[in-house]
């Protein structure tokens, strides 16, 4: 099957791994990722104020393109996903906001018709964890993996609708499908410190340390995440516990981690 795929800026620069492994894994699973032309930055964060229009236009253009293509829109970076999904929700539910946005967008109005999936939802709901399990060539046996969600994937739960925001299982179930053992830890949905790492590195350090300490205390060998900023913050505080993108783990299990030889 084909889906619209929005990598976002960071996956073209500092988080190339997240993108490359996502692409190789999708191919192995029989999903073609069509990248729209001329996409723009999602905006990095969704401004919840309903009078903010300009900062949300790039996401709406992206959504409109997906709706026109009649393919679901798939994102992989947590931040992009949060912005795009929240923007789509605002277009569906806030008529006044949608009206203002549509004045910028030419003739055909958009009201949130596109379907937005995070790459994890694509795996769970479209491909299916059962099908993935069958395609695993390197089962990650014996590995204890802590799945770190952070804030953006799950919250606000009423909009993101990916999983139970306090007791998620979408990544844990993936880890099980790949043959490894998930480690449940309470700080998996607590903030890493986010963008405060610039202005208040001490705060970010404290928050990331708490995440890592809690994962370790529960016996994790590895932390996986979907967010480049989470990975950056956690990496800074982790000495021996590797922090990797979930797509890397997926590619490894599917046997497509190494670049195919020409």
């Amino acid at each position, binding site marked *: 099957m084909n889906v619209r795929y929005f990598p976002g800026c960071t996956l073209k620069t500092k988080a190339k791994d997240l993108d490359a492994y996502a692409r190789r894994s999708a191919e192995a699973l029989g999903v073609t990722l069509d990248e729209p032309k001329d996409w723009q930055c999602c905006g990095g964060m969704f401004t919840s104020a309903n009078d903010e229009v300009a900062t949300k236009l790039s996401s709406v253009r992206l959504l409109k393109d997906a709706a026109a293509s009649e393919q679901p829109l798939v994102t992989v970076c947590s931040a992009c996903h949060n912005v795009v999904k929240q923007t789509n929700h605002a277009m569906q539910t806030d008529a006044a906001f949608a009206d203002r946005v549509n004045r910028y967008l030419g003739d055909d109005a958009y009201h949130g018709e596109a379907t937005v999936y995070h790459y994890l939802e694509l795996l769970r709901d479209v491909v299916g964890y059962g099908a993935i399990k069958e395609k695993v060539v390197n089962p990650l046996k014996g590995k204890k993996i802590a799945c770190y969600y952070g804030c953006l994937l799950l919250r606000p739960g009423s909009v993101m609708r990916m999983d139970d925001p306090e007791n998620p299982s979408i990544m844990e179930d993936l880890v099980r499908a790949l043959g490894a053992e998930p480690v449940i830890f309470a700080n998996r949905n607590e903030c890493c410190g986010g963008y*405060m790492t*610039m202005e208040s590195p001490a705060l970010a350090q404290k928050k990331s340390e708490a995440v890592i300490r809690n994962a370790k205390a529960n016996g994790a060998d590895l932390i996986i995440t979907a967010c480049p900023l989470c990975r950056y913050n956690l990496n800074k505080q982790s000495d021996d516990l590797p922090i990797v993108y979930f797509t890397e783990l997926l590619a490894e299990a599917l046997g497509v981690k190494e670049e195919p030889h020409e």
Partner: protein
Amino acid sequence: MNNAQLRDEVIRISGVNPSKCMGCGKCSATCPAYDEMEFHPHQFVSMIKNGDLAPLLKSDSLFRCLSCFACVERCPRGVEPAKLIEAVRLQVIREKGANHLKPESVPAMVDEDLPGQLLVTAFRKYAK
């Protein structure tokens, strides 16, 4: 804008009704940036409800909220404190010359691994 107008504007653009707050303190119990803040999430809600915005507009607490939405998720009354904080912050940075983050100060704060996402987010939060 006077305090009452400012309160109404904040309530309007945030879409939040602070009167729904029952004062349980869940937002401040769950806030990861609590120790960094002069005014805490539950105070934002009650001060906005009372129209007491002047101290908030001057406070650095506006820039300490991580927008992690833990308070929004866990509030039993659906008050959404993070959206209120954001609406107040917008009142500040939308004023000319009130940007909290200046491009020239960025190089000193970054290292080579820092993802671009972070800079975009920070500018969205701190500047107009």
